């Protein structure tokens, strides 16, 4: 009798297992993005130093310098970076002291100063347009006579 009773007790224990706590959990978040109007950048004027003599320095203020026009989604901030040449394609023609102005209208009057750089800067175009002016200082060392040129690049992305 005792043996049968023991078997029954074991069977009861196996059937009455305690409930298991949650050993698994998950969470769902979201990856989001907003596609805006395409950005366009137009180079509207070169940075012209004109004629420079040997061993001379010439500075062009941004209001008289190179220009870019940016168009994109109105009211959206953009990040702007510049690739600025160290020289005018010759080691004796170093470029330095870059300066800039930015405005949302095509006038350098009341434009805001900024420092062109490879470091991203956030600018905002309430009307969807930005106008930028660039200036710099060119130093001619013992440079052979000739015409020299180097590219100045602006890159604009939405923030």
């Amino acid at each position, binding site marked *: 009798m005792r043996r049968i009773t023991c078997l029954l007790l074991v069977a009861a224990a196996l059937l009455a297992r305690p409930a298991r706590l949650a050993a698994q959990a998950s969470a769902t978040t979201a990856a989001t993005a907003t*596609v805006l109007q395409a950005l366009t950048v137009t180079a509207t004027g070169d940075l012209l130093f004109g004629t420079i003599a040997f061993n001379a320095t010439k500075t062009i203020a941004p209001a008289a310098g190179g220009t870019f026009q940016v168009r994109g989604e109105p009211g959206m901030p953009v990040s702007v970076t510049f690739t600025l040449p160290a020289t005018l394609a010759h080691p004796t023609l170093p470029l330095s002291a870059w300066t800039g102005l930015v405005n949302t209208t095509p006038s350098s009057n009341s434009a805001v100063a900024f420092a062109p750089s490879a470091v991203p800067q956030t600018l905002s175009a309430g009307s969807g347009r930005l106008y930028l002016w660039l200036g710099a200082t060119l130093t001619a060392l013992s440079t052979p006579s000739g015409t020299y040129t180097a590219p100045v690049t602006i890159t604009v992305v939405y923030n």
Partner: protein
Amino acid sequence: MRRSLSLAAALLAVAAGTARAQGTTGSINATASVVAALSVTGTNLAFGNIAPTSFKTIAPASGGTFTVTGANSQPVSVTFGLPANLGAASVAIGSWTGLSNTANSVVGAAALTPSASAQTLSLSGTGNLYVWIGATVTTTAAPVASYTAPVTMTVVYN
């Protein structure tokens, strides 16, 4: 008579069985470790604004996050459900990157590649695990709109 004999035989069998149960016994332990339930919460991986044909990368330190709580110092297996796009083929997402740490800081966090394949991580001494994820969105002539897709992390005790 037959019935009496059968009853007697049954009683004798029970008695014999009773005599055998009085022999030597041994026992083992049935054991289990009950640990705290796991929970996971998350925050979005937001790419913000992007042009119709462009790409944008969000590093994990600036990306979405998952916070896991559970039993102290327990190892866990982690898997991810990752979308291939944000609801449209023209807004693809990929190049997933991640970080994990037992402290709520990316400083000192270990690199992690989010994947559908299980990876083993460990909860901290106080039962916490922090995960950051990043990725790259590539748009190809995508229509102007807002896009979204779910990113899921599942955690189980090892």
